[in-house]
């Protein structure tokens, strides 16, 4: 093998550089802060579904609502957890409680680096920024 020393050194340097973010994080313990959500301030304590389900699958629920309202014209949603009936509306029902998009929606979405396009058309409540 020609230039074995240079090649091996090169490989070692490459591996160290490529994994440097991992080393850096391991050494500096830079764990990002978990997002803090502002809970509803209007006194309501339960969501349309259980918190765990909403946390994991609210996007599926919203897609389902969208299909129901726009394509079949049905607007009533019966909660499977509480049995209560809700109006399937992002701006009327969801944003009625979670009235601050920046402190609720955006908090997680920014953390997760997702950018849903809901707000390209739907209007966030006034008072929020």
């Amino acid at each position: 093998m020609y230039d074995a020393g240079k090649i091996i050194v090169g490989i070692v340097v490459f591996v160290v550089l490529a994994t440097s973010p991992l080393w850096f994080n391991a050494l500096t313990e830079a764990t990002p802060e978990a997002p803090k959500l502002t809970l509803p301030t209007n006194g309501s304590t339960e969501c349309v579904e259980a918190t765990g389900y909403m946390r994991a699958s609210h996007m599926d629920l919203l897609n389902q609502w969208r299909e129901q309202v726009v394509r079949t014209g049905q607007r009533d949603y019966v909660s499977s957890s509480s049995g209560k009936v809700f109006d399937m509306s992002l701006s009327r029902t969801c944003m009625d409680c979670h009235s601050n998009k920046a402190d609720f929606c955006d908090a997680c979405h920014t953390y997760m680096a997702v950018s849903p396009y809901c707000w390209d058309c739907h209007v966030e409540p006034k008072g929020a920024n």
Partner: protein
Amino acid sequence: MDGNRRDFLKLAGLTALGATGASSINATTAAASTVESQAEASTGGVRLGMVIDLRKFSKNDALIERCIEACHAAHNVPDFGDDAKNEVKWIWSEDFETAFHSQEFHYIREDLKGKPTLLLCNHCNNPPCTRVCPTQATWKREADGIVMMDWHRCIGCRYCVVACPYGSRSFNWKDPRPAIDEITPDYPTRMRGVVEKCTFCEERISRGLEPACVEACSNDEIVFGNLNDPDSKVRQLLAERMAIRRKSGLGTQPEVYYIIDDPRTLQETAPAAVVEVAEGGDHA
């Protein structure tokens, strides 16, 4: 052995006969039920339509502007001013001869000449726009005949704009939000690259309200209702008055009717000028 074969053939023949007989019976019942369901569709069910009483709109009435304003404010329709290329409209006004140009009125009645006429999506019973949509972003609702739009699905190909013979569809060439004076938060805006049009105020109807343009009127200038119900106000008007539709010769079956009787006959037929105003959760 011979006997066995004969028995087998008899059995096979009978089976074949039975099978064909059964399937033909099925076919007959299927055909009958199709005819039945078609008859049902034409007599029962809801077919929403609108009657615009031109006799009650005078030439200089601000009512037309009020109707347009009410609709466009409720639905966040952008106003690009004189920029005709970017114009977005759900409901608008043309003079009578332009609105009904295919009728060729040569010696037109004086009161109809140049009369501002309110135009909107006709919610055709046989809509050409829905047939060309590649994503089914627009379709005719089976439940009430509204030609609906799903702006989530629209990819902005504009086939429907070309297909509509009434100019009822507008395309958002620009981001509409800066051109909206005051955004109504309960209703979405559209985004750039999406087609939009009147939805017969589907969102208001589902909450028990009348369409915004109907609500802006005070004297039944526009009447909205179920065309399949012979007792409905729209059908009663159509049974009594002379009404025309735009470009009915195209076979699109538009469901917006225009009463063009002589206004001099109005006095004797006008009902007491009181209109029920729908109550309920108005858009805040």
